[in-house]
């Protein structure tokens, strides 16, 4: 079902911080509806690459395009408006605010009162729609007025993903989504990613957990010393195989 043209395309992307080159000449095509895992050791350049794709930082070389149109993201919000959402660990939620307030943060729904130009928050609709997003993700939360700090780690991820759905993001970047979670919570998050894929969304997954990668990804991209040196379908790769490829990459980079 994937079109031949990539949804998101990177050409010759480079990112340097002064004299330090974090990413060099990376070409990467992401197709609609696929789950792409980006792996690599610490310092391999995957975080820097992700920062470029998510709009957190601008590349120092190369160009990006979406559906063939050149794009450049000046900020994460800019990327969001282009349909690229990043799920940050905890950073992007306001713990003491309610689920609904978090899902609709920055894009609140309003309704007119008395006069057409007098608009007030449409809390009822925001609660109902938050509920819809969360049930879509099969997250077992019912009270949308509950503060996010009272949720489990997995449920928080569901809230963060709901916000991405609210923006109707096509590409969802998940940076180490299970790193801080227990076994049960991790399973919930893996399920969330499957739901996103089933829903036709594109997921870019950064993970140190090779088992997650093998279980979820259609394709694996391995980075080392700022370069992309593996880009292949998962096929029948095992978790160990990926770990070996990462180590081989390190050896080559050294």
């Amino acid at each position, binding site marked *: 079902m994937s079109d031949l043209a990539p949804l998101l395309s990177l050409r010759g992307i480079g990112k340097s911080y002064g004299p330090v080159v974090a990413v060099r000449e990376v070409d990467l095509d992401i197709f609609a509806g696929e789950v792409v895992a980006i792996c690599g050791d610490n310092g391999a350049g995957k975080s820097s690459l992700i920062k470029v794709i998510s709009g957190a930082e601008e590349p120092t070389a190369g160009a990006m395009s979406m559906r063939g149109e050149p794009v450049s993201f000046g*900020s*994460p*919000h800019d990327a*969001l*408006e282009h349909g690229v959402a990043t799920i*940050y660990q905890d*950073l*992007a*939620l*306001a*713990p*003491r*605010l309610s689920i609904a*307030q*978090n899902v609709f*943060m*920055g*894009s*609140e729904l*309003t309704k007119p009162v008395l006069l057409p130009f007098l*608009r*007030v*928050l449409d809390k009822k609709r925001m609660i109902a729609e938050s509920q819809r997003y969360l049930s879509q993700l099969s997250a077992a939360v019912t*009270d949308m*007025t509950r503060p996010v700090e009272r949720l489990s780690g997995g449920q928080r991820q569901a809230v963060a993903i709901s*916000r991405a759905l609210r923006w109707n993001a096509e590409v969802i970047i998940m940076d180490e989504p299970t790193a801080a979670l227990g076994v049960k919570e991790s399973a919930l998050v893996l399920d969330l990613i499957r739901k996103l894929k089933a829903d036709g969304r594109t997921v870019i997954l950064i993970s140190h957990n090779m088992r997650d990668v093998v279980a979820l990804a259609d394709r694996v991209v391995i980075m080392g010393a700022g370069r992309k040196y593996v880009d292949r379908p998962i096929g029948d790769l095992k978790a160990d195989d990926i770990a070996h490829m990462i180590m081989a990459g390190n050896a080559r980079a050294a």
Partner: protein
Amino acid sequence: MGGFDLREVIGRYGTAIAGLVLVLFFLLFAPNFASTMNIINVLKDTSFLAILALGFALAFTVAELDLSIAEMASLAAVVCGWMVHSQYPPAAAVGAALAVGIVLGSLNGYGVTVLRIPSLIMTLGTAAIAKGLAFMITQGVAFTGRWPVSFTGLARGYTFGLPNLVLWMTGATLFAWLLVKWTRTGAHMVATGEADEAARLAGIATARMKRIGLLLAGVFAGLMAALLAANLSSAAPNMAGDYLLYAIAAVLLGMTMFEPGKPNIPGTVFAALVLKVLGNGLVLLGAPYYIQDIVLGVIIIGSVAFSASAMKKAAFKV
């Protein structure tokens, strides 16, 4: 929520109920507390404090401290008083008081968001400047006289049988509450105050929200100043200075009720009333004047300790 959770109720309304008990106590035991005259006086007195505290609460909503509210109010009162004294129309005098608030509130916002000076420092600086200017304008004395009723009536008059001051307080409260609870701008202010980084990532113009919060603190100070000058028929350069601690206490005590741990509008106004009732009741019971300051300090510290433990976390990062 469903179900009745006693801890939740106490956390939310505990201090509000304590405040009501306090009012009942004075009603029963303080001589003359229950007289209509006294109750109206307490309510009028509360109005000044509540309006000023609402401004502080709005700045605190965007996680900024505005320690300049009282001195801004003094300067605004002096400017307003000078205009009335010089026989400018009352509307112009009130406008000038608000303008002082707008200018200094914007200055605070500029310092905090553009120059990135912590609000604690920025507003202390503004306070000192406002204080100096107030003394400069008056040369240390107060403007007093027989001011026109069209001006003094703003505070002393009655509309539909209700003291105008109480109506001003009600209006200011409604405005602040509607803003914070029912508008997008309010939602953005709350998000900015709760989680700056998250709000920024969600595309909220956080710096603008901070400027709005500090601007409103100035506007509310200007309004309070005009009413204070109208009520007293005079304007002195130190007339609002004592209100700072009371306003802070009102906001902090208000944070122990309705929405524990968060600066909130109903809490602020109710706490202002409780503080004024307490002060008035203590006086009527014959307590020496300095007791009030001690009680005030205990309330400030106690409120924060209470909220912090109620939230089971130190949410008071400033």
